[in-house]
């Protein structure tokens, strides 16, 4: 039992160390990003623009349900004038960045792990090395930085659309006027809430990028191995997103 725990702990340290090294090497590749700017833009499109519809759909329903839930909790105790404030706070600080992060972990993190994993098992990574191309600078750096940039941008879209979803529910189901809803939102809006959400999104982007890449590059064992790496990338990213969400919230608030 103790031996198994020790082995698990050593494995954990090894994996953490490998991810930290990969992160350092990916960051060191930053200056070369501009010499392959077209591939960087392609990644930004793949990560950001193509994820936008999914993020928007998720966000509008998230905003709507948070409006329903907030109204349910306020009714009978506090006036619904504060509905906009409650929805806004929940979305800017928590729901916008976290749900965007989780959606991207599923869509982009899994896709990165599967793509790099397939390249690993079909010797395409070895082929890059044989051409004297560093796979980390070539594959990991553009994916990592495009996620760092695109996740906060997607979160801004998510925030806006979620507020719209919340407003629609307020108007149609709760009979709260748009002026009242928006006044409540504006009255309690703090720039710190919004910027904390974006800071979280920035970290979540980094987590999704580095975990997807590390799981992909660590793939072994054919198609089954690719499947395992993809699943692990999503699970690890989701857990780390929730952990960092807690960490950042407890430091800032």
């Amino acid at each position, binding site marked *: 039992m103790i031996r198994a725990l020790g082995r698990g702990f050593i494995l954990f340290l090894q994996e953490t160390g490998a991810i930290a090294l990969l992160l350092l090497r990916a960051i060191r590749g930053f200056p070369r990003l501009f010499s392959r700017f077209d591939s960087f833009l392609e990644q930004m499109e793949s990560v950001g623009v193509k994820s936008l519809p999914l993020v928007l759909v998720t966000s509008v329903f998230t905003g709507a349900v948070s409006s329903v839930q907030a109204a349910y909790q306020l009714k009978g105790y506090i006036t619904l004038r504060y509905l906009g404030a409650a929805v806004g706070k929940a979305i800017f600080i928590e729901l916008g960045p976290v749900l965007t992060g989780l959606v991207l972990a599923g869509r982009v993190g899994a896709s990165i792990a599967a793509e790099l994993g*397939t390249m690993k098992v079909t010797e*395409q990574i*070895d*082929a890059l*090395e*044989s*051409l*004297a191309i560093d796979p980390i600078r070539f594959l990991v750096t553009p994916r990592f930085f495009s996620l760092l940039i695109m996740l906060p941008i997607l979160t801004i879209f998510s925030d806006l659309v979620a507020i719209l979803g919340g407003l629609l529910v307020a108007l149609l189901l709760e009979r709260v006027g748009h002026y009242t809803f928006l006044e409540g939102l504006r009255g309690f809006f703090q720039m710190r809430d919004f910027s904390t959400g974006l800071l979280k999104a920035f970290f979540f982007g980094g987590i999704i990028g580095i975990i997807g890449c590390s799981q992909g590059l660590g793939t072994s064992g054919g198609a089954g191995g690719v499947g395992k790496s993809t699943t692990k990338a999503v699970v690890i990213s989701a857990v780390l997103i929730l952990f960092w969400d807690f960490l950042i919230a407890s430091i800032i608030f």
Partner: protein
Amino acid sequence: MIEISGLYKNFGEKRVLEGVDLRVERGESLVILGPSGCGKTVLLKLIIGLLRPDQGRILIEGKDITGLSSKGLYSLRRRFGMVFQGAALFDSMTVGENVGLGLRERGGLNRSEIEQKVTQALELVGMKGMEGLKPPELSGGMKKRVGLARAIAMDPDVILYDEPTTGLDPQMAESINELIIGLKRYLSVTSVAVTHDMGCAKRIADRIALLHQGKIAFEGSPEEMEGTENSLVQGFVRGRR
């Protein structure tokens, strides 16, 4: 040109190479023969520094590469070209982009010079005019040819071939053999091929080395291999013919 001595490689508990000693002379075509799973590809990857040995030395023109940093290995690899068993073409790129990638990343050439080198390399392997195709549109033999073009576009001193004819029909296998022989003559490169295909080995080799149980069990010309009374070699020659 390449001198390997006392090379050992394990993967966990599994011993793959157990003291390989081998020399490759400049300009020669050496074929490392052996059954599937005997460690031939591992040996090839050790030569180009894709894997690190547990013990032993690999000298490339007198310089031991086993202790090189990753920067040193990248500069070493510029002298090598490798053709992978499954071709290992980059799926997201066209044939032309695959062949030109190494040149583009190495720098020093402008776009039209790269295009010219790509066209030349594809012409040499009989794939001229196919620059715009994507790997999924190619047959197995065409993929091998593009893999070869990608390797020769970099003007290597040494080309490493991993099972160049595996998975191809006899006609296509023969055309790949002819291509390898032709390129060796035309480009005067050193070739190291690993295969379990006896026909391929006899066709392209100046010298054959038989890898058995992690060691080189026989070295000699194809004719010496045919004539030897070594029962292990004879068993392999007869079994595979």
